Structures are given as C-alpha cells and as structure tokens.
C-alpha cells in the first residue's frame, strides 16, 4: 500500500529532523545517567536522580559493594534500561492503539505528554500556594490522574475539532497533528516560559538499597511500577470490557462494526482521548527526574515511534517488548557508540527495514481501509 509507505517515509524524515535538531535532549531523556560520562555505579545512581540525589549518594559507596563492579554495572544498566523503556512503552501504547484504530500517526503525541507534565506542575504549584505545607506530599496523587484526564481531554477536543474531519486522508492528518504539536508547544511556552521543574514528593525521593553498592532510585522504581500497572489496565480494558470489544471490532472492520450499531465516531474520540491520556500519564512522571520545558515531548516521541514501528501496530506485547528492548539497547550500546550516532544508526536501520517491508509494519487497517 503506497500510502502506508508515504506515511512511514514522512514519519522517518520527521523523526530524523527532530533527532538531529535536539540531540542533547534526546540523550538526556533516554539516558540522563551515562551522559555524565562516568562508569562508577554508585555515582551513576546518585546522578540519575538529580533533584533527589541526597540520600542516594550517601547510601551507595563502592567500597562496601557486595558484588563485583561489572555485575553491579550490569544490574544498574538493566534497571535504567527498564525504566527508560517504561516511559517509551506508555507512549507507544497510545500511539499504537490510535494508529491501529484510525490510521492516524499522531505527531503531537509527545506534546500530549508535555501537557500531562505541565498539569502535574500546575497541581504542585497549586498545592504550594493554597494548601498547608503538610499536604504538599500528596499533590502527586492528585497530579497523576489529573494529567491523564487533562491530556486525554485535550486529545478528545483535538479529535473532535480537527482530526475527525480528515479521516481517510493520511497526509493531511499527519500535517494536522504536526500543527497541533506546534500549537501546544507555543501555548505552553507562552504560559510557562522556557524551563521549570517541581519538587517530587518526599516519598519518591531517595533510593532503595537492595544490596551494598546497588541503590535503585525510588522515582524510577515508581515509574516501572506505574508502567506495569498501566499496561495491565490497558490489557484489561481492551480485552475484557464492552468498550474494548467495540474498539477491537472497529479496528478490524470499521464499516461492518458500524452496521452492527457501533457508534464508531464515539469510539474514535474516546480512543484518541485514552491514547493521549496515557501520554499525559507518562508526562506526569518525567518531572520526577528531569526538568520541564515545552519541547520535552519531541525527544521522547521519536523513540516511541521506533517502539511502535518495531513492535508492530496495535500489538500490546510488541510495544512492551520493543519498548523495554530499546531501553536496554540504548543503555548497553552507549558505552561503545556515541549516543547521537547510535540513534541515527537505529533510524537508518528502520528506514531500510521500512523499504523492505512497509506493509508488514503498517497493516492495511483502520480508517484508511474504509474509503
């Protein structure tokens, strides 16, 4: 199908541009630790959680290590890879469900993540301003669901106002989502300025000392746990609920589903909202270990597109495996390859792969198959 090939081509070009334009952020996003160019496990663990480094660095000291350095390093890399992969999986899930159902490649997906991050930021500021100091630690419990809801709500709005009118026209849709991403970035810049951050709740600062020399930062543990929970929730929603059944039926054969009474327009809107909501949830996690800025989504979305492409559209297990895999790969390869070139090499590989089997990666389904 030529149109899938065109989409894939455009996607890769955009990805490459973003990657070249913002290499440093891409790196920070995927690998805040190794960036600092150190190999000592303890220091790595400490630097990982810049805002929450105090306790961690005190707890980890190489001299008390129970395992040899290489083993610790491997464990630490595995853990870091897993946590980097977790964010990607959250993003890829939404991208993949949306593409599977509607044939829409959502170039604004990273910006919905950014919306989620700023929602968490606003909640944190509000708690600081309006509630007694003791309450501050709980802001994050409000921020998480709110990030999902706000990003999902903005997603539903965009679907309703813009994307709905462009179904069956993949190139226009692609451009429209790109436009939405620019709009969201500029809006965020107007409201929030360039770079901000918030203080994570105290219960997510510090680390868990598994064995001497191996400290796992709590924020990253939380991220992995949340990702596991989200994947399980998505699985249950898609496989076990009436909504999930309608979603699957519409993904498989849209006209026939609607002839059976399925309100496919509603399914589209809700699914788009759900996918962007997942991105918002991912966004709420980022400020736990990184600063916020209006462009933050772009660095992540490139990687998550790769996850979708490699994992296969609409395949939950594929997204999970590919996300974790890409996380690991990045962590393990970085010592050898300079990260920017490593990324470009992966992109080049994907381009070759797409030339070889475009339809294998973008099955002819969803809206595009309708007309």
């Amino acid at each position, binding site marked *: 199908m030529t149109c899938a090939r065109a989409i894939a081509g455009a996607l890769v070009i955009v990805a490459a541009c973003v990657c070249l334009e913002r290499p440093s952020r891409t790196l920070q996003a995927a690998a805040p630790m190794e960036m600092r160019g150190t190999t000592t496990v303890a220091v790595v663990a400490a630097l990982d959680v810049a805002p929450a480094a105090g306790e961690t660095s005190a707890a980890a000291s190489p001299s008390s290590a129970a395992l040899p350095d290489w083993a610790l390093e491997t464990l630490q890399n595995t853990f870091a890879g897993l946590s980097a992969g977790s964010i990607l999986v959250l993003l890829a899930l939404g991208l993949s469900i949306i593409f599977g159902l509607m044939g829409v490649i959502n170039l604004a997906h990273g910006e919905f993540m950014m919306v989620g991050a700023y929602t968490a930021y606003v909640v944190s500021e509000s708690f600081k301003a309006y509630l007694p100091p003791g309450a501050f630690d709980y802001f994050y419990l409000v921020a998480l669901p709110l990030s999902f809801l706000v990003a999902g709500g903005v997603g539903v709005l965009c679907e309703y106002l813009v994307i709905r009118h462009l179904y069956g026209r993949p190139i226009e849709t692609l451009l429209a989502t790109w436009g939405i991403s620019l709009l969201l970035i500029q809006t965020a810049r107007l409201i929030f300025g360039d770079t901000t951050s918030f203080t994570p709740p105290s219960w997510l600062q510090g680390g868990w000392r598994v064995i001497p020399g191996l400290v796992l930062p709590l924020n990253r543990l939380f991220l992995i746990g949340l990702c596991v929970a989200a994947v399980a929730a998505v699985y249950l929603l898609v496989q076990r609920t009436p909504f999930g059944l309608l979603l699957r*039926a519409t993904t*498989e*054969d849209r*006209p026939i589903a*609607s002839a*059976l*009474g399925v*309100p496919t327009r509603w399914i589209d809107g809700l699914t788009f909202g759900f996918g962007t909501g997942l991105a918002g949830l991912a966004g709420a996690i980022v400020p736990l270990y990184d600063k916020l800025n209006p462009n933050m989504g772009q660095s992540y979305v490139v990687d998550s597109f790769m996850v979708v492409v490699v994992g296969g559209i609409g395949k939950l297990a594929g997204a999970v495996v590919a996300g974790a895999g890409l996380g690991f790969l990045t962590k393990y390869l970085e010592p050898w390859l300079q990260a920017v070139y490593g990324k470009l090499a992966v992109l080049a590989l994907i381009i070759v792969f797409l030339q070889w089997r475009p339809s294998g990666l973008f099955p002819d389904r969803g809206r595009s198959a309708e007309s």
Partner: protein
Amino acid sequence: MLTIQNLSFSYGVIQVLDDITMVVPTGRITCILGRNGVGKTTLLMNVMGLLRPTIGAVLMGEHDLTDLAADRRSALGLGLVPQGRRIFPRLTVIENLRVALAARRQPTDRIPDDIYDLFPVLKTMSHRRGGDLSGGQQQQLAIARALVADPQVLLLDEPTEGIQPNVIQHIGTVLRHLVDERGLTIVMVEQYLDFVKEIGDRFFLMDRRRVVAEGLTSDLSADLVHRHLTV
C-alpha cells in the same frame, strides 16, 4: 416498509446506480437479481448507510434514513449480512456475537438463546476465532451476528456464495422461518436462481444501473433470465 426512492450513486465519475426505486414489502423475502458488477452490493451499502447516494432517499417506516449514519440505522432496526461475510477474524465467535450487544445504550452480555437454536454449530465453536471457521460456519455466524441486534429489516448480500449445499439448505430454512414466524423483512441479493425461487417471494431485476423488472419470484420468466442474467 423499506422504500428506496430515485436513488443514484457514483464511485467518483463512474455512475453505478441510476434512479433506483424499490418498494420492499414487509414480512416478505425480496430478492435483488442481476449480473456481476451491476451494482447490487453498492445498492445494499447505500441502504445500510455505508455509502451515501448522490441523490435519492432511503425510508424505513416513518423514518427518513438518508442522512443517518449506519449505526443509527442499525438502532432503528436495519441489519446487514455483507458479501464475503466479513466476520471479525481475530474476535472469537462469541465476541463477534457480542459486538451488537455491547453497542447498545445499556450494554448486555446475554446472547439471546434462540440464536443457538437457529445455528447450533455456533454453540460448539463459541471460543474459536472467527477467522478459523469454515465458510459455511462464517456465513451462519454473520447471519446470527446481525440477528443479535434484533433487526426488523435484514439485508443479505449473496448468502449462498461459496457455501456447501447442506448449509445453503439450512440457511434457507432459517430465513424462511424468521420471515414466516417472526415477521422479519428480508432483502436478499442472490445469484443462485434455484435458491431464489425456493425461498424468495418477490424479485427486483437490475441491469445497466437500473431496475428493469420486478414481480413474484414464481413469475420469473426464462426470457427475463436469458436477457438480464445469463452471461
């Protein structure tokens, strides 16, 4: 009563249907006949709302369906068994049946018992994937799936295409039963003339984008068949 009024349709610049008018009697089996490519499937798609006519109208009872989406037409009592069956291949048999139930305003899990009475084979297959069924089983599933939505008017597009004779026989019995015992109205596109004559009540014959004849299936003359159906 289903009425198609002066309906025309074009795929881009190619006109496929020209001023089609059909008045479909309630509680009868009405067959639409015509050679391959004459536009029968296109007509059913227009009636279901999956394609929109260039001009013309589709009415059901007091409802004007012309501007309604397919899911609204389904809610008003129109059902479709599409050509080629189009079972959801990766959904199980029971999930295929549940789609129409889940789409209701009050979603329910209960598949009406009589569905399995009509098509016993589906009961034994309920956890197999739709795509793994044989053609005959898929055809029965497609009919059952449409019936779950409880339609008053059922559109069937070539239900005997590629199906073994004993299953055709069974499908014919079921369709006749639904019409005679429950007052269902059936519009059936069909090329298999013996089947049309056996279970059909009335026919519309199409040729060159238009309706060229209509009447009782028992009156379908050899001359009409020769002029408009033989290739």
